[in-house]
């Protein structure tokens, strides 16, 4: 189990199809939810919960996953206006789980360390979204380029 937000290369980047150039396209079980209105936040977290249930997560973990999806989808609306949340099944060497990739072409994050701090926010929130999501997921990777956008990749494994 890794939970390292700063490491650029997570294991399984290629075989799980979550590289930035091809956000899980071509995978039958990947589901891309476009995030443009706040109603899409509800859709994304509901789809995430359904997927988690299908993979076999217990109700508590389904809720935690739905909450993390809600937070990162909310960040897209708050900071980048629009983007996508892509949900996928993970199956690596018998380990099953769910991957969540949130991508936007927004302004990017100027100070990642600050953004990952509990209670810090530049807008409209409690500042718990990123650090909170990182805490509840098994893997969390944030990539951001100023003026280009932000990608958050998260994984939760079934235990």
């Amino acid at each position, binding site marked *: 189990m890794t939970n390292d937000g700063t490491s650029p290369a997570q294991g399984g980047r290629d075989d799980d199809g979550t590289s930035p150039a091809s956000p899980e396209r071509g995978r039958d079980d990947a589901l891309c939810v476009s995030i443009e209105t706040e109603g899409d936040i509800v859709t994304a977290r509901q789809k995430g919960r359904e997927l988690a249930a299908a993979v076999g997560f217990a109700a508590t973990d389904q809720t935690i996953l739905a909450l993390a999806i*809600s937070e990162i989808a909310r960040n897209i609306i708050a900071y980048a206006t629009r983007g996508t949340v892509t949900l996928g099944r993970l199956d690596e060497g018998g380990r099953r789980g769910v991957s969540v990739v949130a991508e936007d072409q927004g302004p990017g994050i100027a100070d990642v360390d600050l953004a990952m701090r509990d209670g810090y926010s530049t807008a409209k929130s409690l500042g*718990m979204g990123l650090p909170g999501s990182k805490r509840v997921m098994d893997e969390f990777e944030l990539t951001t380029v100023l003026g280009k956008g932000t990608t958050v990749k998260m994984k939760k494994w079934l235990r």
Partner: protein
Amino acid sequence: MAVPLLKQGDVLIASIQAALTDQDLVRLREDVADRVGRFRSRGVVIDVTSLDVLDSFATRTLRAIAYTAKLRGANTVVVGIQPDVAFAMVQLGLALEGIPTALDLEEGLAQLDALAGEGRHRDQ
């Protein structure tokens, strides 16, 4: 989908539905502030039993609703937070900070009664 607001005596009851959007919550905040004045309500119960997730925005807005109602002279109790929802909130570090909560509607109404009683004692 607007949140229905029911008047029962001097209490307003808001039953939040599962697919609640941010807009619905913001509207609820405005509706509560308005109805508390119109119905001269002394208490507000917000029932979140059917809510699948309480995220940071929902948490913050519930706090705003409670503080707004308080400034208008009404106490607010949030009822029906489901076990999984509560657990997820704790894991993520979300808190309702000072807003009374109760297990269900019945407990919430009893709590409002108790709060109103305290108020009367102070007045005497």
